[in-house]
């Protein structure tokens, strides 16, 4: 367990870097970096260039593709698939907010209220990872099954009436609706919210709460003025770790949704693997990447947390 | 430890350190630490004392100059090839090894197979025989400190370097460890070079103290010599407290300089001032607070002749137990400090009282007035 809890979740902000000392052997760092960086250059950066080139090619599978600087592919792809783009952003955004709302109390509980149960709860948060996420996502099919207890309860409580009116569900069904997809996305990426939140909450000195209380802050004020601002690094990395993969996900939309809930990931997957329209697929994937990088950069600037790695 | 053996000498010649960013931590410096001595490098943080130590250890490469251990030049030798060991600040005990393995580390690296006996003896010496199988974090600060010393000493280095070894301990433990270290040093006879910012620690433990300031050695000497005959205002203020009075040379006769300060006259033995003594020249006159006697102004007539005297008003007094510390406002010096032993306390000596301060002229020292009169004051270590 020690290793797992000690591992900082990815993207979690770290202490400002100390200036590394200079050593004899000036080439050593380059030898250390070489294999890994080469790997990333060849299998991460180079593919991006290939993809960029593919996106402006025309041709067919039979005759082969040529770079013709056919930027119209981008326009065509956008005008045809903008609903899926929009849907991806909306679903991912909704899932991110839900993750924050659901994840914060649990992270807070682990950090400040769990006492000797802390490690156990931590294990329970991480352990589901070891069951393939596809199996767990399929389990939601059972949980949200038509006429099942969950749907029945929602129906009795008239929750479904509200969600139907909002267009989140349809009729007596939850499965194959936006609600099911968002529910699945939230479930899948919740731990990525909880872990960074926990890391930044755990760093907060408990005496700060006492100090705030001593200085006439009510518990709610203490949270709003002290705890939450101090947990901002966790909030930022948590939301990023949730939003980015959720926006590109196609598994939840495929397993829990319907043709009306297709996200941009589904489109890219279909174009690439079934229709074999590589330029369109490449253009779509490029747009997705650019959109996410733009949003992330803007978000990080706004939240003032630039040292994430 | 014979006098002819000089293999434990540390000789620094023209050694200096300038970092890549252009900051010069140590200006060219010559220093010889004789075999078997307990040598302290004393100064405020950032004065270059730790850099000097690290250059002896080989952890820092000097920009210029050479390091000799005895007759061997070690300037370019990596640390693991130098017969020198270090007790690090906050100890740097290996957290993944137990106490036994921490102490055995150096022996094992030098390929010594049977270390058990030696390590056990060493742990006995520092009274940690029982703790051999514990991890460092399970020991108290004082115990960790002893492990750090044992881990270094077991290698019987020519020189032991101590980098603020007592900084992390509380006052009482620090006193105890000071005596302990001193005892060990006398017992093993190894040259100790001790870096500290604590002037009392340096004076208690070391035979010779080098006071460093801004990358240079201000003064070097025995603790008594440094205390009684400070040569710069920095040393005067950094080591203990000094009252410094701005004065002017009036006349000179029979080995004594007579100075004008405020309205009065003060006498300074010529031997205790190295600067120019032309009439009208400016001199800083110093006297330590404990050399001064306070007499209530009503009894001024009872003060013997031939003593330096100054009049003033008590501004503040604090009772310390063994002594009472007075702050006196005087026309010649705004905040004159006086420590009076609590033997026969004069009940009239309360804030507001008019007093005469007087002391034996032999306790007066003179400093070059061209210096900053407050040098070393802010940096003075609180003990």
């Amino acid at each position, binding site marked *: 367990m020690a290793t797992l809890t000690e591992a900082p979740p990815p993207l979690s902000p770290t202490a400002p870097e100390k200036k590394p000392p200079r050593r004899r052997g000036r080439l050593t760092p380059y030898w250390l970096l070489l294999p890994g960086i080469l790997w990333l250059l060849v299998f991460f950066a180079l593919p991006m260039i290939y993809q960029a080139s593919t996106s402006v090619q025309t041709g067919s599978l039979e005759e082969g593709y040529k770079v013709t600087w056919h930027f119209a592919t981008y326009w065509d792809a956008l005008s045809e698939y903008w609903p899926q783009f929009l849907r991806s952003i909306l679903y991912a955004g909704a899932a991110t907010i839900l993750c924050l709302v659901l994840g914060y*109390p649990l992270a807070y509980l682990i950090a400040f209220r769990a006492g000797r149960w802390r490690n156990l709860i931590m294990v329970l948060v991480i352990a*589901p990872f070891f069951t393939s996420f596809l199996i767990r996502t399929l389990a939601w099919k*059972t949980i949200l099954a038509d006429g099942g207890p969950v749907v029945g309860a929602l129906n009795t409580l008239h929750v479904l009436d509200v969600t139907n009116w909002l267009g989140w569900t349809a009729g007596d069904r939850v499965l194959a609706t936006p609600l099911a997809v968002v529910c699945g996305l939230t479930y899948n990426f919740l731990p990525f919210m909880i872990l960074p939140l926990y890391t930044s909450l755990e760093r907060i000195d408990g005496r700060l709460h006492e100090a705030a209380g001593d200085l006439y802050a009510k518990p709610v004020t203490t949270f709003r003025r002290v705890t939450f601002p101090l947990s901002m690094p966790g909030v930022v990395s948590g939301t990023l770790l949730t939003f980015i993969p959720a926006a590109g996900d196609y598994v939840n939309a495929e397993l829990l949704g319907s043709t009306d809930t297709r996200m941009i990931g589904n489109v890219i997957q279909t174009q690439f693997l079934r229709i074999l329209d590589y330029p369109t697929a490449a253009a779509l994937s490029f747009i997705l990447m650019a959109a996410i990088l733009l949003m992330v950069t803007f978000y990080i600037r706004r939240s003032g947390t630039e040292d994430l790695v | 430890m014979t006098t002819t053996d000089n293999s434990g000498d540390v000789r620094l010649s023209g050694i200096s350190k300038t970092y890549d960013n252009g900051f010069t931590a140590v200006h060219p410096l010559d220093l010889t630490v004789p075999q078997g001595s307990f040598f302290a490098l004393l100064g405020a943080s950032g004065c270059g004392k730790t850099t000097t130590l690290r250059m002896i250890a080989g952890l820092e490469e000097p920009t210029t100059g050479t390091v000799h251990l005895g007759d061997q030049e070690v300037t370019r030798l990596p640390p693991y090839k130098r017969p020198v060991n270090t007790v690090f600040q906050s100890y740097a005990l290996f957290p993944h090894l137990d106490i036994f393995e921490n102490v055995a580390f150096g022996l094992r690296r030098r390929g010594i197979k049977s270390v058990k006996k030696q390590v056990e003896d060493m742990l006995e010496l520092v009274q940690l025989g029982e703790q051999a199988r514990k991890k460092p974090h399970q020991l108290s600060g004082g115990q960790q400190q002893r492990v750090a010393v044992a881990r270094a000493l077991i290698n019987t280095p020519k020189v032991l370097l101590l980098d603020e070894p007592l900084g992390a301990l509380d006052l009482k433990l620090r006193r105890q460890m000071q005596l302990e270290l001193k005892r060990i040093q006398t017992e093993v006879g190894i040259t100790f070079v001790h870096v500290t910012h604590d002037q009392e620690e340096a004076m208690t433990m070391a035979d010779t103290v080098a006071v460093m300031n801004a990358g240079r050695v201000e003064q070097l000497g025995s603790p008594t010599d440094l205390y009684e005959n400070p040569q710069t205002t920095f040393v005067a203020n950094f080591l203990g407290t000094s009252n410094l009075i701005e004065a002017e040379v009036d006349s000179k006769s029979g080995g004594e300089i007579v100075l004008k300060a405020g309205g009065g006259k003060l006498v300074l033995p010529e031997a205790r001032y190295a600067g120019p003594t032309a009439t009208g020249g400016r001199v800083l006159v110093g006297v330590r607070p404990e050399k001064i006697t306070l007499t209530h102004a009503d009894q001024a007539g009872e003060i013997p002749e031939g003593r330096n005297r100054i009049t003033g008003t008590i501004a503040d007094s604090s009772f310390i137990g063994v002594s009472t510390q007075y702050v006196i406002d005087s026309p010649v010096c705004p905040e004159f400090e006086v420590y009076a032993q609590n033997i026969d306390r004069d009940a009239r000596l309360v804030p507001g009282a008019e007093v005469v301060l007087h002391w034996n002229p032999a306790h007066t020292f003179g400093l070059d007035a061209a210096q900053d009169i407050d040098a070393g004051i802010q940096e003075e270590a609180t003990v």
Partner: protein
Amino acid sequence: MALVNWLKRNLVVIAGLITLGYLLLPNVVVTVFSFNKPKGRFNYQWQQFSTDAWKDPCGVVGMCGSLSISLQIAFWATVGATVLGSMIAFALVRYRFRARGTVNSLIFLPMAMPEVVMAASLLTLFLNLGAQLGFWTILIAHIMFCLSFVVVAVKARVMSMDPRLEEAARDLYASPVQTFLRVTLPIAAPGIAAGALLSFALSFDDFIITNFNAGSTVTFPMFVWGSAQRGTPVQINVIGTAMFLVAVLLVLTSMVISNRRNKQKA
């Protein structure tokens, strides 16, 4: 009033436990349904209790084969990513060099990139190079996306390490190689282990990137995906449950052991 107060004070706890329930509910369902005996091809509705699947976990064609492929890929991806990632982490913390910023962004970007983008672009590369899709292309892809996570985990650990420990080792006659093996590596070990564990989990569970670059090779997640279209055998739940239990048990035992060890020593 007392109840309201109690609720107020424990609101966070209650909300947190609800979230925990939400997180664990699917695992409960997976476990329960591993004892199901479904009527049709799909295992989504409860029919009757049975231990058939537990008695014959490999009774489904191709499933255990895919499991073994996934384990092999996860193992080698872990080894590759951990070695390469740790080297980068050490270089980043312990040395100064040019192009530091570029290196940092090259490590950050794969973590900030939706998987589907990496998957598609990597496939473009493989197609252009005419590479044979299969075990090796999957392994290459997995090492690529695990690498950054190892770097982050190891870097954090090495950064929190007191550089004086290495100086102390050098001072105590350890050569640079000995210093690394005897001091640096053991102290960085928890970070390296965390990175390795994370790599294993990420690689073993990866579907999106694998799906693009697998060719005709079928990993365990791909098998589950395929069965979601064709029919889900109960054995999938058996594997899911077993892995969950093994993980929890391993972690709990290690916790108990380390607790006991600490108590004995203290």
